[in-house]
């Protein structure tokens, strides 16, 4: 811990990752990154990691990964060149240098950006603009036909209307009661309710006759004058005279 830059090197909090540390080391070496010695940089970095170890400082894993990779790069650069070696260590060194250049370029670009005349800090928009307004108007549309039909609708709604119920073919409950009572005496066994309807009954009249006959059957059953049988809901309904 004799060299003054050691204190800088061990200030771990200041580094944003191994690449950042490498860039700082490289800039100590040369301002122009294109002229740095990758080999020297590698040694500096490995020396830094060594010192951290000696001080029992815990280094984040990515610093150690970088150290391992740089140790590999260093040995590849120092060993006699094998023509077919892949990847080419010189190329790896060049890429590392390019990465450092790229990071430095972006760091400088960020600083230049922040130093620009910034809106709201150095230059200002109008403090109290009147503002622009977009006013939407409805252009109401209706035609004479709309008007006529609306008035027709209102008038028709208010005219007195006489409701006439048309004469419809029905079988009254009384008729059904009389018919079933009369027919029951002629039947010897269970007969479906449909067989009690008039033979000529069709359509609405047949439905009316069926409804009334059903009610009549219930009424007769209540009076004990008929017996009803149905095997299941909606199954045929059978009638017979009580035994």
């Amino acid at each position, binding site marked *: 811990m004799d060299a003054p830059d050691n204190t800088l090197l061990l200030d771990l909090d200041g580094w944003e990752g191994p690449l950042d540390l490498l860039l700082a080391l490289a800039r100590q070496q040369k301002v122009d990154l294109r002229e740095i010695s990758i080999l020297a940089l590698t040694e500096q970095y490995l020396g830094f990691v060594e010192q951290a170890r000696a001080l029992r400082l815990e280094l984040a894993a990515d610093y150690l990964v970088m150290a391992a990779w740089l140790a590999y790069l260093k040995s590849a650069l120092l060993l006699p060149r094998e023509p077919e070696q892949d990847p080419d260590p010189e190329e790896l060194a060049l890429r590392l240098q390019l990465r450092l250049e790229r990071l430095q370029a972006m760091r400088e670009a960020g600083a230049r950006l922040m130093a620009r005349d910034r809106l709201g800090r150095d230059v*200002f*928009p*109008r*403090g*109290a603009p*009147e*503002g*622009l*307004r*977009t*006013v*939407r*108007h*409805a*252009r*109401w*549309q*209706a*035609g*004479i036909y*709309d*008007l*006529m*039909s*609306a*008035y*027709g*609708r*209102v*008038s*028709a*709604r*208010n*005219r007195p*209307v006489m409701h006439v119920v048309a004469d419809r073919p029905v079988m009254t409950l009384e008729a059904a009661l009389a018919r079933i009572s009369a027919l029951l005496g002629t039947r010897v066994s269970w007969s479906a309710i449909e067989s009690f309807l008039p033979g000529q009954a069709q359509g609405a009249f047949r439905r009316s006759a069926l409804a009334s006959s059903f009610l009549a059957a219930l009424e007769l059953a209540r009076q004990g004058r008929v017996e009803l049988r149905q095997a299941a809901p909606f199954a045929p309904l059978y009638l017979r005279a009580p035994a």
Partner: protein
Amino acid sequence: MRTAGGTVPDDLLRAAEAILFAATEPLTPDAIRAHLGLAADLRPVLERLRAEYAGRGIELVERAGRWHFQTAADLAHVLRRDREEPRRLSRAATETLAIIAYHEPVTRAEVEAIRGVQISKGTIDVLMEAGWVRPAGRREVPGRPLLYATTPGFLAHFGLSSRRDLPGMEDLRAAGLLDPIDHAMAAFEVESPAEQD
């Protein structure tokens, strides 16, 4: 844009201009001076700025000793952009308009009686906004309710030369518009108090 001559230093003029522009409220000359941090007499600066902006789209004005920029008064119309959107009149509004046209002048209560349904405040407003209906005095009965009538704009829009051109009841009947086809339905129709117009 700089006028020739004048004894006001340019940098003072520019600074005052920028301060007034960026200010969120009208400024007294003292307030401007405080920003500048110097003891200059601002009166000639402000007067010259005002003169330079005279006739432009922006002007510098003084109100009760405070100065501010504003857009020129005659350009107020360009700051407002009007957009027309065609919209169909609602059924409630169409019926109300028809009743007013056939029975004018009528009160709102009378319109409601004829329609058999209440009408919302907005319905008549829409018709007035459209320029088809106008207030036409008051009926001299207790409460003096407002009367409504149609406008010349109404006749123009519907292509009528006078109200006598409105189709009569016989015309409506002939056109099949009085047939009570769906009136059982209409009677059941629910109309909310806050009718959409």
